Protein backbone atom coordinates (compact mmCIF):
# COMPACT_ATOMS: atom_id res chain seq x y z
CA UNK A 1 0.00 0.00 0.00
CA UNK A 2 1.25 3.45 -0.90
CA UNK A 3 2.34 5.83 1.83
CA UNK A 4 0.21 8.88 2.43
CA UNK A 5 1.62 12.12 1.13
CA UNK A 6 1.23 15.24 3.22
CA UNK A 7 -1.29 16.57 0.73
CA UNK A 8 -3.42 13.45 1.11
CA UNK A 9 -3.39 13.86 4.88
CA UNK A 10 -4.44 17.49 4.69
CA UNK A 11 -7.15 16.43 2.23
CA UNK A 12 -8.41 13.89 4.80
CA UNK A 13 -8.51 16.66 7.39
CA UNK A 14 -10.54 18.85 5.01
CA UNK A 15 -12.96 15.97 4.34
CA UNK A 16 -13.38 15.39 8.08
CA UNK A 17 -14.28 19.05 8.63
CA UNK A 18 -16.67 18.97 5.63
CA UNK A 19 -18.39 15.90 7.03
CA UNK A 20 -18.60 17.55 10.44
CA UNK A 21 -20.34 20.51 8.82
CA UNK A 22 -22.75 18.16 7.01
CA UNK A 23 -23.53 16.34 10.25
CA UNK A 24 -24.24 19.50 12.27
CA UNK A 25 -26.17 21.11 9.43
CA UNK A 26 -28.37 18.02 9.04
CA UNK A 27 -28.78 17.77 12.80
CA UNK A 28 -30.16 21.33 12.84
CA UNK A 29 -33.03 20.23 10.55
CA UNK A 30 -34.35 17.88 13.24
CA UNK A 31 -37.61 18.81 14.88
CA UNK A 32 -37.91 19.35 18.62
CA UNK A 33 -34.31 20.27 19.29
CA UNK A 34 -33.91 22.03 22.61
CA UNK A 35 -32.78 25.64 22.27
CA UNK A 36 -29.51 24.85 24.08
CA UNK A 37 -28.74 22.07 21.63
CA UNK A 38 -29.69 24.15 18.58
CA UNK A 39 -27.44 27.00 19.72
CA UNK A 40 -24.46 24.73 20.28
CA UNK A 41 -24.95 22.78 17.04
CA UNK A 42 -25.00 26.06 15.09
CA UNK A 43 -21.72 27.17 16.70
CA UNK A 44 -20.07 23.80 16.04
CA UNK A 45 -21.27 23.82 12.43
CA UNK A 46 -19.80 27.28 11.86
CA UNK A 47 -16.51 26.28 13.51
CA UNK A 48 -16.15 23.36 11.10
CA UNK A 49 -16.29 25.78 8.14
CA UNK A 50 -13.53 27.88 9.69
CA UNK A 51 -11.41 24.76 10.28
CA UNK A 52 -11.98 23.59 6.70
CA UNK A 53 -10.76 26.96 5.42
CA UNK A 54 -7.71 26.78 7.68
CA UNK A 55 -6.74 23.38 6.31
CA UNK A 56 -7.30 24.58 2.72
CA UNK A 57 -4.91 27.50 3.31
CA UNK A 58 -2.44 25.05 4.85
CA UNK A 59 -2.64 22.86 1.74
CA UNK A 60 -1.92 25.84 -0.53
CA UNK A 61 1.07 26.80 1.58
CA UNK A 62 2.40 23.23 1.72
CA UNK A 63 2.21 22.84 -2.05
CA UNK A 64 4.96 25.39 -2.29
CA UNK A 65 7.18 23.99 0.45
CA UNK A 66 9.03 20.86 1.43
CA UNK A 67 7.64 19.36 4.58
CA UNK A 68 9.77 17.33 6.95
CA UNK A 69 8.13 14.13 8.01
CA UNK A 70 9.32 11.84 10.75
CA UNK A 71 11.67 9.02 9.75
CA UNK A 72 9.24 6.16 10.26
CA UNK A 73 6.73 7.60 7.80
CA UNK A 74 5.75 4.23 6.32
CA UNK A 75 4.61 2.96 9.72
CA UNK A 76 2.98 6.30 10.52
CA UNK A 77 1.22 6.30 7.17
CA UNK A 78 -0.23 2.86 7.89
CA UNK A 79 -1.42 3.96 11.33
CA UNK A 80 -3.00 7.16 9.99
CA UNK A 81 -4.84 5.07 7.41
CA UNK A 82 -6.20 2.84 10.22
CA UNK A 83 -7.30 5.85 12.29
CA UNK A 84 -8.87 7.49 9.26
CA UNK A 85 -10.72 4.26 8.32
CA UNK A 86 -12.09 3.92 11.84
CA UNK A 87 -13.40 7.51 11.93
CA UNK A 88 -17.14 7.53 12.64
CA UNK A 89 -17.82 9.40 9.38
CA UNK A 90 -15.49 7.32 7.22
CA UNK A 91 -18.27 5.47 5.36
CA UNK A 92 -20.18 7.32 2.63
CA UNK A 93 -23.18 9.27 3.92
CA UNK A 94 -22.38 8.29 7.52
CA UNK A 95 -22.50 11.94 8.62
CA UNK A 96 -26.01 12.41 7.21
CA UNK A 97 -27.25 9.05 8.51
CA UNK A 98 -25.95 9.64 12.04
CA UNK A 99 -27.63 13.05 12.15
CA UNK A 100 -31.01 11.93 10.81
CA UNK A 101 -31.31 8.44 12.27
CA UNK A 102 -30.29 9.24 15.85
CA UNK A 103 -33.20 8.01 17.97
CA UNK A 104 -33.36 11.15 20.09
CA UNK A 105 -31.41 14.24 21.02
CA UNK A 106 -29.28 12.27 23.51
CA UNK A 107 -28.12 9.86 20.80
CA UNK A 108 -27.51 12.80 18.45
CA UNK A 109 -25.21 14.48 20.97
CA UNK A 110 -23.45 11.17 21.67
CA UNK A 111 -22.79 10.80 17.92
CA UNK A 112 -21.43 14.34 17.87
CA UNK A 113 -19.08 13.53 20.78
CA UNK A 114 -17.86 10.44 18.95
CA UNK A 115 -17.19 12.50 15.83
CA UNK A 116 -15.20 15.08 17.78
CA UNK A 117 -13.18 12.37 19.60
CA UNK A 118 -12.32 10.57 16.36
CA UNK A 119 -11.32 13.87 14.81
CA UNK A 120 -9.16 14.77 17.80
CA UNK A 121 -7.39 11.44 17.61
CA UNK A 122 -6.64 11.92 13.91
CA UNK A 123 -5.35 15.47 14.41
CA UNK A 124 -3.23 14.52 17.44
CA UNK A 125 -1.72 11.64 15.46
CA UNK A 126 -0.69 14.00 12.66
CA UNK A 127 0.58 16.60 15.14
CA UNK A 128 2.96 14.06 16.70
CA UNK A 129 4.59 13.19 13.40
CA UNK A 130 4.95 16.52 11.63
CA UNK A 131 8.10 18.49 12.41
CA UNK A 132 7.16 21.74 10.67
CA UNK A 133 6.53 24.25 13.49
CA UNK A 134 4.11 26.43 11.51
CA UNK A 135 1.89 23.42 10.71
CA UNK A 136 2.08 22.23 14.32
CA UNK A 137 1.00 25.67 15.54
CA UNK A 138 -2.10 25.61 13.33
CA UNK A 139 -2.95 22.03 14.30
CA UNK A 140 -2.53 22.87 17.99
CA UNK A 141 -5.08 25.66 17.73
CA UNK A 142 -7.59 23.44 15.93
CA UNK A 143 -7.03 20.65 18.47
CA UNK A 144 -7.73 23.12 21.30
CA UNK A 145 -10.98 24.17 19.64
CA UNK A 146 -12.08 20.56 19.08
CA UNK A 147 -11.42 19.82 22.77
CA UNK A 148 -13.74 22.70 23.65
CA UNK A 149 -16.35 21.21 21.31
CA UNK A 150 -16.15 17.92 23.23
CA UNK A 151 -16.43 19.69 26.56
CA UNK A 152 -19.49 21.71 25.50
CA UNK A 153 -21.22 18.64 24.06
CA UNK A 154 -20.51 16.68 27.24
CA UNK A 155 -21.89 19.53 29.38
CA UNK A 156 -25.03 19.55 27.27
CA UNK A 157 -25.54 15.82 27.95
CA UNK A 158 -25.05 16.13 31.68
CA UNK A 159 -26.88 19.35 32.54
CA UNK A 160 -29.85 19.44 30.22
CA UNK A 161 -32.87 17.18 29.96
CA UNK A 162 -31.48 15.80 26.69
Amino acid at each position, binding site marked *: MENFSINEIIELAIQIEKKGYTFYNKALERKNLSSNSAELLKKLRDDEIVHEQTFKRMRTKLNREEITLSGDWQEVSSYLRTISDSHIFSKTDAAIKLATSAYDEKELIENAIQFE*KDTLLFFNSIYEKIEDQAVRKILKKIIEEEVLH*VKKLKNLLTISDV
Partner: protein
Amino acid sequence: MIFFSKNEIIEMAVKIEKHGFAFYDRALQRSDLNNDAKKLLQTLRDEEKVHEQIFLNLREKIDNFDLNSDIDWDEAKLYIQSMVDIHLFSQPEKAIQLAAKARDMKDLVSNAIQFEKDTLLFFYFIKKFVAKEKSKKAIENIIDEEVSHVVKLKKIQDTL
Protein backbone atom coordinates in the same frame (compact mmCIF):
# COMPACT_ATOMS: atom_id res chain seq x y z
CA MET B 1 0.41 27.09 39.90
CA ILE B 2 0.03 23.44 39.04
CA PHE B 3 -3.53 22.15 39.39
CA PHE B 4 -2.75 18.49 39.02
CA SER B 5 0.00 16.77 40.82
CA LYS B 6 1.99 14.33 38.72
CA ASN B 7 0.54 11.63 41.00
CA GLU B 8 -3.00 12.50 39.96
CA ILE B 9 -2.08 12.30 36.30
CA ILE B 10 -0.21 9.01 36.73
CA GLU B 11 -3.10 7.66 38.80
CA MET B 12 -5.53 8.36 35.94
CA ALA B 13 -3.21 6.54 33.53
CA VAL B 14 -2.87 3.57 35.90
CA LYS B 15 -6.66 3.40 36.26
CA ILE B 16 -7.14 3.39 32.50
CA GLU B 17 -4.66 0.54 32.07
CA LYS B 18 -6.31 -1.39 34.95
CA HIS B 19 -9.71 -0.99 33.31
CA GLY B 20 -8.25 -2.14 30.03
CA PHE B 21 -6.86 -5.24 31.73
CA ALA B 22 -10.29 -5.90 33.31
CA PHE B 23 -11.98 -5.56 29.91
CA TYR B 24 -9.66 -7.98 28.12
CA ASP B 25 -9.61 -10.39 31.05
CA ARG B 26 -13.42 -10.55 31.11
CA ALA B 27 -13.54 -10.82 27.33
CA LEU B 28 -11.35 -13.93 27.52
CA GLN B 29 -14.07 -15.67 29.55
CA ARG B 30 -16.48 -15.51 26.63
CA SER B 31 -17.37 -18.73 24.83
CA ASP B 32 -17.66 -17.22 21.35
CA LEU B 33 -13.97 -16.51 20.74
CA ASN B 34 -12.01 -18.08 17.92
CA ASN B 35 -8.31 -18.91 18.38
CA ASP B 36 -7.02 -15.76 16.68
CA ALA B 37 -9.21 -13.53 18.80
CA LYS B 38 -8.23 -15.37 21.99
CA LYS B 39 -4.54 -15.01 21.20
CA LEU B 40 -4.86 -11.31 20.47
CA LEU B 41 -6.96 -10.59 23.57
CA GLN B 42 -4.36 -12.39 25.72
CA THR B 43 -1.57 -10.26 24.24
CA LEU B 44 -3.52 -7.06 24.72
CA ARG B 45 -4.44 -7.99 28.30
CA ASP B 46 -0.83 -8.75 29.18
CA GLU B 47 0.41 -5.52 27.61
CA GLU B 48 -2.04 -3.46 29.66
CA LYS B 49 -0.52 -5.01 32.79
CA VAL B 50 2.97 -4.04 31.61
CA HIS B 51 1.81 -0.49 30.85
CA GLU B 52 0.26 -0.19 34.32
CA GLN B 53 3.61 -1.15 35.83
CA ILE B 54 5.47 1.35 33.66
CA PHE B 55 3.23 4.15 34.89
CA LEU B 56 3.68 3.02 38.51
CA ASN B 57 7.46 3.12 38.00
CA LEU B 58 7.18 6.58 36.47
CA ARG B 59 5.40 7.74 39.59
CA GLU B 60 8.50 6.85 41.61
CA LYS B 61 10.88 8.49 39.15
CA ILE B 62 9.32 11.80 38.17
CA ASP B 63 8.38 14.68 40.41
CA ASN B 64 6.37 17.85 40.03
CA PHE B 65 9.32 19.65 38.50
CA ASP B 66 9.05 17.33 35.53
CA LEU B 67 5.70 18.83 34.65
CA ASN B 68 5.98 21.34 31.86
CA SER B 69 6.07 24.82 33.38
CA ASP B 70 5.22 26.44 30.03
CA ILE B 71 1.74 24.97 30.19
CA ASP B 72 -1.29 27.04 31.08
CA TRP B 73 -2.61 24.80 33.82
CA ASP B 74 -6.19 26.08 33.52
CA GLU B 75 -6.04 24.83 29.97
CA ALA B 76 -4.33 21.57 30.98
CA LYS B 77 -6.96 20.78 33.58
CA LEU B 78 -9.66 21.29 30.93
CA TYR B 79 -7.99 18.85 28.56
CA ILE B 80 -7.08 16.18 31.05
CA GLN B 81 -10.46 16.18 32.75
CA SER B 82 -12.25 16.14 29.38
CA MET B 83 -10.20 13.19 28.15
CA VAL B 84 -10.93 11.27 31.36
CA ASP B 85 -14.66 12.12 31.29
CA ILE B 86 -15.11 10.97 27.71
CA HIS B 87 -13.11 7.76 28.12
CA LEU B 88 -15.19 4.68 27.37
CA PHE B 89 -14.22 3.15 30.70
CA SER B 90 -14.71 6.27 32.79
CA GLN B 91 -16.63 4.22 35.36
CA PRO B 92 -14.92 1.10 36.72
CA GLU B 93 -17.81 -1.33 36.10
CA LYS B 94 -18.18 -0.23 32.53
CA ALA B 95 -15.10 -2.12 31.30
CA ILE B 96 -16.40 -5.45 32.58
CA GLN B 97 -19.95 -4.76 31.38
CA LEU B 98 -18.80 -3.93 27.88
CA ALA B 99 -16.79 -7.17 27.69
CA ALA B 100 -19.51 -9.38 29.14
CA LYS B 101 -22.53 -7.87 27.39
CA ALA B 102 -21.13 -7.40 23.88
CA ARG B 103 -23.63 -9.08 21.52
CA ASP B 104 -20.99 -10.85 19.49
CA MET B 105 -17.33 -10.71 18.40
CA LYS B 106 -18.01 -7.74 16.16
CA ASP B 107 -19.44 -5.74 19.05
CA LEU B 108 -16.63 -6.84 21.39
CA VAL B 109 -13.89 -5.82 18.96
CA SER B 110 -15.67 -2.52 18.31
CA ASN B 111 -15.66 -1.81 22.07
CA ALA B 112 -11.99 -2.76 22.29
CA ILE B 113 -11.10 -0.37 19.45
CA GLN B 114 -13.03 2.41 21.13
CA PHE B 115 -11.22 1.78 24.42
CA GLU B 116 -7.81 1.87 22.73
CA LYS B 117 -8.68 5.08 20.84
CA ASP B 118 -9.92 6.81 23.99
CA THR B 119 -6.78 5.71 25.83
CA LEU B 120 -4.59 7.06 23.03
CA LEU B 121 -6.34 10.42 23.19
CA PHE B 122 -5.67 10.61 26.92
CA PHE B 123 -1.99 9.71 26.53
CA TYR B 124 -1.47 12.22 23.71
CA PHE B 125 -2.64 14.92 26.09
CA ILE B 126 -0.64 13.89 29.15
CA LYS B 127 2.49 13.66 27.01
CA LYS B 128 2.12 17.39 26.30
CA PHE B 129 2.35 18.15 30.03
CA VAL B 130 5.50 16.23 30.82
CA ALA B 131 8.77 18.13 30.33
CA LYS B 132 11.49 15.57 31.08
CA GLU B 133 12.73 13.72 27.98
CA LYS B 134 12.94 10.31 29.67
CA SER B 135 9.33 10.45 30.94
CA LYS B 136 8.14 11.74 27.56
CA LYS B 137 9.91 8.83 25.89
CA ALA B 138 8.27 6.31 28.25
CA ILE B 139 4.82 7.68 27.41
CA GLU B 140 5.71 7.75 23.69
CA ASN B 141 6.63 4.05 23.84
CA ILE B 142 3.27 3.25 25.42
CA ILE B 143 1.50 5.35 22.78
CA ASP B 144 3.28 3.34 20.06
CA GLU B 145 2.13 0.08 21.64
CA GLU B 146 -1.47 1.27 22.00
CA VAL B 147 -1.31 2.30 18.33
CA SER B 148 -0.30 -1.25 17.45
CA HIS B 149 -3.28 -2.49 19.49
CA VAL B 150 -5.62 -0.42 17.30
CA VAL B 151 -3.99 -1.77 14.12
CA LYS B 152 -4.28 -5.41 15.28
CA LEU B 153 -7.89 -5.01 16.42
CA LYS B 154 -8.81 -3.32 13.15
CA LYS B 155 -7.31 -6.25 11.22
CA ILE B 156 -9.56 -8.64 13.17
CA GLN B 157 -12.54 -6.33 12.70
CA ASP B 158 -12.03 -6.37 8.94
CA THR B 159 -12.39 -10.19 8.92
CA LEU B 160 -15.67 -10.25 10.87
